[in-house]
């Protein structure tokens, strides 16, 4: 248990919550990895991988935020595949997936912890 806890990556403080526009993503550097932070209109904050699996380009943070059914989504800006922000699943192509990272807001500051893969 303790060993497992120790193996968890640390939280990284990334920015102020109010730097994030609702309905638009930004990219962040966390432990040398690129994360797309997205604030959705329902008030949630999501952190997923910034790498577009189809092109390999680091662009997911620049996609359009929306919904499909009741799933909050992010569309790849190059080829428009739609990803579920909560699970990272690609709703158009089950072979693609984005890593989903932990995100927390503490005292108005946004913190991210990378998912272990």
């Amino acid at each position, binding site marked *: 248990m303790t060993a497992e806890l120790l193996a968890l990556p640390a939280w990284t403080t*990334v920015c102020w919550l109010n730097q994030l526009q609702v*309905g638009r993503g930004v990219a962040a*550097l966390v432990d040398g990895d690129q994360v797309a932070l997205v604030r959705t209109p329902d008030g949630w904050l999501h952190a997923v991988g910034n790498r577009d699996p189809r092109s390999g380009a680091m662009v997911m943070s*620049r996609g*359009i935020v*929306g919904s499909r059914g009741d799933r*909050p989504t992010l569309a790849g800006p*190059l080829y428009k595949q739609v990803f579920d922000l909560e699970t990272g699943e690609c709703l158009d192509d089950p072979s693609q997936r984005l890593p989903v990272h932990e995100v927390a807001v*503490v005292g108005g500051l946004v913190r991210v912890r990378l998912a272990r893969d």
Partner: protein
Amino acid sequence: MSRKTLVVVGHGMVGHRLVESAVARGLLEEWDVVVHAEEDVPAYDRVALTSWFDGRDDLCLVADGFFDTPGLELRLGDPVVAVDVEARTVTSRCGLVTPYDALVLATGSTPFVPPVPGATGERRFVYRTVEDLGRIKAAAAGATRGAVVGGGLLGLEAAGALHGLGLETTVVEFAPRLMPVQVDEAGGVALRRLVEDMGVQVRLGASTQQVLDTDGGLRMEFAEGDPLDVDLVVFSAGIRPHDALAREAGLAVGPRGGIDVDEACRTSAPDVYAVGECAHAAGRAWGLVAPGYAQAEVVVDRLLGGQATFTGADLSTKLKLLGIDVASFGDAFATTPGALELVYADPVAGVYSKLVVSDDAGTLLGGILVGDASQYALLRPMVGAPISGSPADLVLPVRGDAPVGAGAAALPDSAQVCSCTAVTKGEIRCAVSEGGCRDVAGVKACTGAGTVCGSCVGLVKDVVGLELKALGVAASTALCEHFDLSRAEMFEVVRVRGIRTWSQLLAEHGRGAGCDVCKPTAGSILASLHGEHVLDGEHATLQDTNDHLLANIQKDGTYSVVPRIPGGEVTPEHLIVIGQVAQDFGLYTKITGGQRIDLFGARVEQLPQIWKRLVDAGMESGHAYGKSLRTVKSCVGSTWCRYGVQDSTTLAIELELRYRGLRSPHKVKMGVSGCARECAEARSKDFGVIATDNGWNLYVGGNGGFRPRHADLFLTDVDTDTLVRTIDRVLMFYVFTADRLQRTAPWIEGLEGGLEHLRAVVVDDSLGLCAELDAAMERHVAGYSDEWADVLADPAKLARFASFVNAPDEPDPSLRYDTVRGQIQPAPRDAGPVLVAGPTLQVVR
């Protein structure tokens, strides 16, 4: 220039928000900010105050080290005791006198304690600060019974807290029901049961006469009924704006208290602002945090020279009381004339839902939800929107999967679908089954339904869809799952109803959160109608990455910049600037098929620097992206060519400058040739102009691309004014009525009556639309400004051009390039590192 001083009085939620925003928006470049706080602790999340009892110790809103920022100072525990608006100074309790250039009062409010004998003293508390809660907690330690005076939002929250501390708790409310401001009588009954089920006693219609000290306790006496013996009492009977300081300084206050401010949040004294609960803004005091935040943003914007205003806010509330759902929104008390109430109540389950709808049951006006507020998030944005389907479906508990639009099927033929034109469902069905209409546009033209306020268009569409289905005809022009409208219908709705924001459009005519189809479409429509900058406020969230970053994304995630070269004419000086920019930023350079020069491989954080170089040299970046005018291709024409009969280059430049930036359903291209030899390939463009001995011939509806098509002759031998006016009208009519991603050729083919109809509309004014088309184009031309220069001038927009939110100038470390024929090219993704993109320059912000 010497620095100015901003003094903020009050470090509560709103005061701190103002300071944060001031820092984020760059106010510290010219201002020092001094904050005076009455409380001993920095700003904390008062909304979550109650969770302090649960041991939450992270309520603080201030980040570690925030006030170490040079230019910022926080003076804790030293309230301001006097303001001198003549001398422009504030004096604090410690005697510190601070001169100000601008002053913001953010003193919040004070709890209201009814003026009854014995209301103050030991064992009597209010519920506002961490300190208050500390005292309550200490007193509760040896106590068994507590009372809360006030059964409103805050009173119930306090009662929940006392109950949580293990006290036998009674809520005493003067009104005949709980939450009298938000909940109606029946809702109050349901709420009371839920509160009592939690173990909190409720005493209604009880007016407290006095509070007496007894042996080791308190006795509360009421106008009627038995007295109540308790160990402590919390007063939570409302709040009053904390405006004493302002009154003493001679500032104007509102009729029921609160520092009077105008829509810029300015008080009656020069350079003195008031925000948050102490302010009386837009006709009232606002006891919620969101309006205060909005006011804080307004003041910061004003200090930066902006024009932001505060004109009101939504007062919908949802109670976050230990497990009880209560929500109240919109016209909850059905005060709108003719409003109808739909009620669903299940006393066993403790659920009460009421929706208020307009007299035709067509529009949701508001509602109250007690016991189950799960629909709140869905319903609140629908206020003001037409209800598609039966309103009863909204209030009844969700059962399984009732199909969307089922409401239209349930309507009788006699039901009025369009209230503006009194068209019934039967008439619409008839227009489809017998009149041959196949879509909403057809039905509108035939019956008039949906042509006035536009709010029934969704329902019209449902009826049309159902009827087509009954006839066995499949047809959907819906944009996507979020809108039943086609692009043209969306345009119509936005135009007729004067919609200015995405939120309003979505709330009134859509559902869900939108997607990469409807959001850019809406963004384009809002831009073509209102001409606001594509990155203004919420508009920014609608744009495709190209429109969002005002450049064209490439396969590796970098962007291309295509400086505008109107008509293809360029001076050697400008060519040199383009070359130098390409060289300095290491960009791949190519001549495009549209007579300009494309610079590839620019990173997000480099874009503003590149534009600045272009703007400084008298150029602008251009639209090679976005659904808008691309280029107007020209040939050299009569000025140099031995065959030229008109000055095609000058006309091409005029047209490009006239229509640049206009957002349209798809991209638009034009060409102007100086004679019939047609070197500018004008007939392969959406708008082609070919010079004649007597003037110009105009061709419309051409394109290259996927399905090449030559443009058709539209006007012959006209002068330049007639030509421009006609292009204005055709282009605007296209913007008004074409579908998403429909270029001019398929659009004209799709018009009933084709080219002849188009000519009738723009030349003979058969629809009486020309004046409006002309006015819309005038607005566009007059309102055009260099979008790229606008970004450079606006720090908030500029902030978007950061590679990483936590490392704004750090290049994307994943970019890799090869060098081919002396220029960069993206390296295959899995190849090893070769060269990191171009040089990094210091970003000027």
